[in-house]
């Protein structure tokens, strides 16, 4: 019997409610209240006395709380206390609260009369100094009634709930007024009023109040609540703790035991232990027992069936939960796996980047070292044989050749003419010196010409290399009229060095080198300008270009 035929879960609370059996003392108390009711008029303080508002409100609330159907004419009872000759407007707030309780128990709370009473309570609270004159109990009882029976208007009374919270003392209790010593009754009533109120502040205050009350009970027992024979205060405290989510079940059970041990033979309670039963005290005791959950028994078979059904439902829910757990785990695994892969990939990338960074750092460090070495070399290496301060023209070979020819011709002429022997020897000597020189110069000239031609050829080579060709041509144009050793120096040393250092160091190093060798300013400017473009090349391109120039400069086309 775990579920109904239509598959919907059984509503056990409804079924149990239909088959409930009252706890005997409570059933007796409700019978007591039922007998005390005067049809259409309400309850007196004790059976036989004329009906009055306060016992009527308590009894009606108690019957409603115990799920006992209250008398059908409670609304009329309520109105009977309002008129005639007793306008509602003049009622003290405590009696106004009683009227609201009465109407609330009669399902008239939402009606016009209920709304008017709530308006009236609102206006009464707004009166000057109302906050200081109201006792904590009066204010708390009103707020509890409004919150439980007129919940749609709860927000209107939130400032008063705050006011009640402000009255709470540091130890968690409440005084009866705005200040003063702790009061058990006031604390219990305030706890009942703030129970379940929204906000962390109310929740904390509720826990502190329950702890304060329970602390006193643990220290001195239920007998000491109020005074030893006082039943009313114990009922109020038990009701508040019973409704509180913060209360200790042991304390509650002791309280229930105390109440049940002190019920009178007529099933009612008196205001003191053993005293004549009254409607007030009996109704308050019923409210306390209901709040503590001690008002009815459930038939054993029904309870067992309910327990089994609930167990089955719990097992079913457990299974659903397990499935859900598994799915969640799977999903977590899949998504987690993706995430883990991504994380691994990113870590790998990070390592690669780190390696690159390390390489770059090492490269930079080695470049730095290489540069330092180059500077060292530059400082110590000898300069070219001739200063490079001006452009050199190639007139010397021609001069030497002309001189050699002239000397040879002269010596021949002297020989033919038979001139003096002195002149002869002079001519021979001149020819002997000049001719080798002239030959050497001629050889040199030819060599130079050959190299220049090689360079010219290189400059005109169309190898479709749009990167190197312009630079190559520019360099050859710039160095066309340089002495060979200068040209060789620049290509062999300088350019070779420039291939080894980083881009941003190229120009400054070239400037340093050229100044050190004393190159003329116009040549230097042109070459530095070229060097800037040279530096933009990759190291491989730089090496290639240098190699090309070097080969051309050696005449190796």
């Amino acid at each position, binding site marked *: 019997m775990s579920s109904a035929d239509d598959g919907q879960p059984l509503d056990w609370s409804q079924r149990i409610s239909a088959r409930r059996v009252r706890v005997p003392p409570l059933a007796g108390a409700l019978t007591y209240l039922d007998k005390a009711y005067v049809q259409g008029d309400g309850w007196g303080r004790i059976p036989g006395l004329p009906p009055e508002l306060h016992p009527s409100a308590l009894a009606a609330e108690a019957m409603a709380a115990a799920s006992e159907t209250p008398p059908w004419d409670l609304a009329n009872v309520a109105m009977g206390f309002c008129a005639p000759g007793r306008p509602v407007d003049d009622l003290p707030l405590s009696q106004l609260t009683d009227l609201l309780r009465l109407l609330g128990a009669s399902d008239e709370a939402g009606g016009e009369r209920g709304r008017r009473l709530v308006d009236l309570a609102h206006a009464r609270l707004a009166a000057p100094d109302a906050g200081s004159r109201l006792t904590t109990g009066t204010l708390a009882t009103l707020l509890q009634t409004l919150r439980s029976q007129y919940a749609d208007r709860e927000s209107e009374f939130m400032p008063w709930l705050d006011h009640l919270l402000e009255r709470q003392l540091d130890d968690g209790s409440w005084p009866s007024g705005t200040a003063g010593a702790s009061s058990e009754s006031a604390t219990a009533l305030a706890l009942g009023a703030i129970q379940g109120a929204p906000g962390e502040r109310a929740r904390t205050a509720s826990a502190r109040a329950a702890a304060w009350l329970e602390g006193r009970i643990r220290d001195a027992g239920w007998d000491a609540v109020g005074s030893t024979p006082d039943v009313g205060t114990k009922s109020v405290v038990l009701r508040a703790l019973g409704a509180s989510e913060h209360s200790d079940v042991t304390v509650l059970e002791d309280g229930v035991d105390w109440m049940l041990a002190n019920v009178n033979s007529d099933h009612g309670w008196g205001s003191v232990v053993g005293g*004549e039963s009254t409607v007030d005290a009996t109704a308050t005791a019923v409210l306390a027992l209901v709040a503590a959950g001690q008002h009815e028994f459930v038939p054993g078979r029904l309870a067992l069936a309910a327990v089994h059904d609930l167990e089955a439902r719990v097992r079913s829910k457990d299974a659903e939960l397990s499935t859900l757990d598994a799915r969640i785990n799977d999903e977590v695994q899949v998504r987690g796996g993706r995430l883990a892969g991504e994380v691994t990939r990113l870590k790998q990338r990070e390592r690669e980047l780190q390696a690159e960074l390390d390489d770059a750092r090492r490269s930079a460090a080695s470049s730095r070292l290489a540069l330092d070495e180059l500077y060292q070399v530059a400082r110590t290496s000898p300069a070219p044989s001739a200063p490079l301060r001006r452009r050199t023209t190639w007139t010397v070979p021609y001069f030497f050749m002309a001189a050699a020819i002239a000397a040879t011709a002269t010596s021949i002429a002297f020989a033919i003419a038979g001139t003096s022997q002195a002149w002869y020897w002079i001519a021979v000597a001149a020819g002997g010196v000049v001719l080798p020189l002239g030959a050497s110069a001629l050889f040199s000239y030819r060599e130079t010409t050959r190299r220049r031609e090689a360079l010219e050829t290189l400059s005109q080579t169309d190898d479709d290399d749009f990167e190197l060709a312009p630079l190559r041509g520019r360099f050859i144009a710039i160095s066309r009229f340089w002495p060979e050793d200068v040209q060789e120096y620049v290509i062999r040393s300088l350019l070779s060095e420039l291939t080894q250092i980083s881009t941003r160091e190229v120009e400054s190093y070239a400037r340093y080198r050229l100044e050190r060798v004393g190159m003329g300013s116009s040549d230097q400017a042109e070459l530095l300008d070229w060097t800037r473009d040279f530096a933009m090349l990759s190291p491989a391109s730089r090496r290639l270009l240098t190699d090309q120039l070097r080969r051309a400069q050696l005449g190796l086309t």
Partner: protein
Amino acid sequence: MMGTKNFNPFNEVASGDRFVGREKARKFFEQRLNGLSAGSPSHAIVAGANGTGKTSYLRRIIELAREQGYATAFFEPGPNADQAATMSIAPIIGEIVRGVDARLNQQKLGDDWDLGVGSKLFDTPKVADPPSQVVVRDLKYLQERMLPEVPGVLVCIDEGRRISGTALSTLKLVLSDPEVTRFLVFVSHFASREQTAVVEARAELKERAQHASGDQGADAFLKGGIALGPFESDEIAADCIRKRLVDNVLEFDDDVVRHIGRIEELHPRQMIDLASDVYEATSELGAAKATFTHLVAGFERRHPNEKEDSQRAFDGLPGTARDAVAALLRLRRESTADEVVEAMYGDDAANAAKARLASVVRNDLELACATRIVRRVGEERYATSDERRAFAFDLAMRE
């Protein structure tokens, strides 16, 4: 009609013109004054608790004596009323001299007295313990100077606790002299209980004189005494409030005045104090007339403890107990539980039910006794503890 004074009249010191009631005390004084005029003065003690109107009474009899042509001398305690008893006889004699001077519209006696050791007319030295014979001689001299124009001198000494034991002893010796017959002395003295006030005060004076000078009967010269307590009636108490409000911009509702008297159980000083707080509360709220609302505000200011006790009792008592206490308040007398039930229901309930309720009410009143609102005054008889708590409880019931 609205007055012009806009200050709190309840903060002013006591004065004779505001003295009301006390018919018995007035007659007592008139008898003593007649004795003085006949040359057989009967000195008296005025005893009562703080705030019962002793000073006002002395001021009032001073005025009455002046109206009848007597010279007067009045000693006030000054700002240090609580200090030890140090008042000696010389200043008292000096004040009598100045009183006679004033009555004769002159200053020469007083001026001569002020010369001290150089005085030509008086011999009393300004020491703590002068010989009584010298004092007697000076008083006789004063009698000669003022008679027959001035029939006698009324000497009022406020706060008799401040008179030193030796001064008391000297005063007794001087006033016991058969030739000193034109001086009537009234001494006020604190006493805690009205019923035994004079006996209590006399015993204290006697003990002090005995302790100081070995005098066994210094109080004996004070032949009679009058005890001051609460006002005799509500109406007189109300007059006390109204007299102070004469020509004031603020008025008190009659109901408020009546309540003040009731709350303070017709005790003069306490009534004045509560009225002062009500006046302040009314003034702060900008009202021209003190109503019940202002009374409540003044009461809460003056008696916060009683308010707290009552609120605690109201919150802690079951509904039937509250109504029983309320009925006891209405009865305003010591009552049994049956009487309380009768006050609650009268003829509206069956006797059997009322008898059952009486046992409930008895239990409830016992619970209420623990709250200090109700006290048991005898076998199964109950009364409210005091009017202040009763009023505060009534306020809680009204809310």
